[in-house]
């Protein structure tokens, strides 16, 4: 058997190994291949999943919500406008505390219409109450999907999990990958055994009741507590996963950060490109490092602040705009996390890679040159800028 698979193939294969009870399926580029491959597994009888085709993503998520509430483990995949159309139901899933797993193959949002990668879809859903875990490559996309259920289904967490990978760059790129044995995966993920569910005859369940204001606040605080509890559970599951795979994951990955003075904070496949640039800079004696944020929800604020506390200048790389006029979402989180440090590095935000605009190793090297300049002069210059667009020189 081949040892090279695309990100979409890898996630579809992880789904097959898990053999979930229900899939709510509606295709959208670049995640289309996931329901496509999975439909083949269903047709071949390789899984006994109830594959529910629907007329929109609002409905595919509704299927997952209903099925999960009934006591069935449910999965879904989508991208871009599909995720946007689920928006209402994403909140319902999270607030009903239904641990659905969604593979989000990240893609720009319209408009102008564009099918290529950035993080505007998943970042738009960052406050819906879903755990968000991002992959750098196909291996991580596969691993994250397998870790999602043990995280989300834990009683102290009970939240849905969105595993994100970069559209096309990861979803359609064939790379070497190591799959685990199906038996190992099934044992790791286990059965979905919720304490209460709609089809439990001993105590029929009412899900999603109307909350008057005397109750809503309490339920939201419970949800917030669950998101806080998820942090420890994510690390616990990562440790267990390391035992079966030999691959170690944290809330974020620190790359050559031991003595780094200049650092970059970023998410997804671009981190791989930046690692190669950091290696080059290290060879030239530049104390460069990077932090790849893997878990964006819950946001590892304290840990990130600690990891950046010894640096002099940091570039936060946002692969979505956000239109706050004050920098992208990763920047907002990172800057907020650093506020409590006694000694803070200089911080800049660079919005890059929108709609598939490529990030090159040279771009990363140029950013580190800018950071070196900031560290040397103490002058940050413009804090919030964009990278890679055609523009007249001012």
């Amino acid at each position, binding site marked *: 058997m081949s040892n090279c698979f695309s990100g979409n193939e890898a996630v579809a294969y992880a789904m097959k190994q898990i053999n979930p009870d229900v899939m709510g399926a509606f295709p959208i580029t670049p995640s289309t291949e996931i329901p496509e491959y999975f439909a083949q597994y269903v047709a071949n009888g390789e899984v006994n999943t109830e594959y529910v085709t629907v007329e929109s993503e609002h409905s595919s998520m509704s299927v997952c919500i209903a099925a999960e509430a009934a006591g069935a483990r449910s999965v879904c995949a989508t991208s871009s406008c599909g995720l946007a159309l689920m928006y209402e139901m994403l909140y319902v899933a999270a*607030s*009903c*505390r*239904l641990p659905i797993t969604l593979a989000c193959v990240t893609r720009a949002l319209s408009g102008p219409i564009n099918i290529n990668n950035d993080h505007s879809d998943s970042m738009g859903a960052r406050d819906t109450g879903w755990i968000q875990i991002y992959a750098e490559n196909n291996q991580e996309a596969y691993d994250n999907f397998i870790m999602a259920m043990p995280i989300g289904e834990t009683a102290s967490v*009970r939240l849905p999990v969105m595993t994100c990978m970069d559209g096309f760059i990861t979803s359609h790129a064939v790379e070497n990958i190591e799959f685990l044995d199906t038996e190992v995966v099934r044992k790791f993920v286990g059965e979905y055994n919720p304490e*209460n569910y709609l089809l439990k005859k001993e*105590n*029929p*369940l*009412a*899900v*999603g*009741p109307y*909350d008057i204001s*005397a*109750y809503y606040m*309490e*339920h939201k*605080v*419970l949800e917030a507590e*669950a998101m806080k509890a998820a942090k420890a559970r994510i690390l616990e599951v990562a440790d267990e996963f390391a035992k079966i795979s030999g691959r170690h994951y944290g809330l974020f990955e620190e790359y050559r950060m031991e003595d780094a003075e200049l650092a970059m904070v970023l998410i997804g496949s671009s981190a791989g490109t930046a690692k190669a640039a950091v290696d080059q800079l290290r060879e030239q004696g530049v104390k460069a490092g990077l932090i790849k944020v893997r878990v964006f929800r819950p946001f590892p604020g304290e840990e990130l602040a600690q990891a950046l506390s010894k640096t002099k200048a940091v570039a936060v790389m946002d692969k979505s705009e956000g239109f706050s006029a004050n920098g992208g979402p990763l920047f907002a989180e990172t800057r907020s996390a650093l506020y409590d440090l006694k000694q803070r590095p200089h911080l800049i935000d660079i919005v890059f890679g929108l709609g598939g605009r490529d990030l090159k190793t040279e771009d990363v090297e140029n950013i580190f040159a800018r950071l070196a300049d900031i560290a040397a002069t103490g002058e940050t210059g413009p804090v919030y800028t964009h990278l890679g667009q055609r523009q007249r020189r001012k």
Partner: protein
Amino acid sequence: MIHAKDINEQTPLEDLTPGGEIYEAGTARDFNTGSWRTDTPIFHAEKCKHCMLCVPFCPDSAIPVKDGKRLEFDYLHCKGCGVCETACPFAAITMVTGGEPK
């Protein structure tokens, strides 16, 4: 497991259920929602043919049925809307003014 009847506006969040789930059916029985009627239906058992037309019309499930016979109104849940009086073909239900059955 906490029961719906034990949840109220003084319950601290630690005792509430995730997502506000309710782990039992028919919990409306636990709540007296018929305390504010302005009109009240009166059941005339001698005229009733037990045709059961009134039962599905009642929006508050306030007409109990046992062994194929309708019983006296459940005044803890009846809101006095009067739809049962209109639905009854045998004048076995009449509305009276006031919140109490007279």
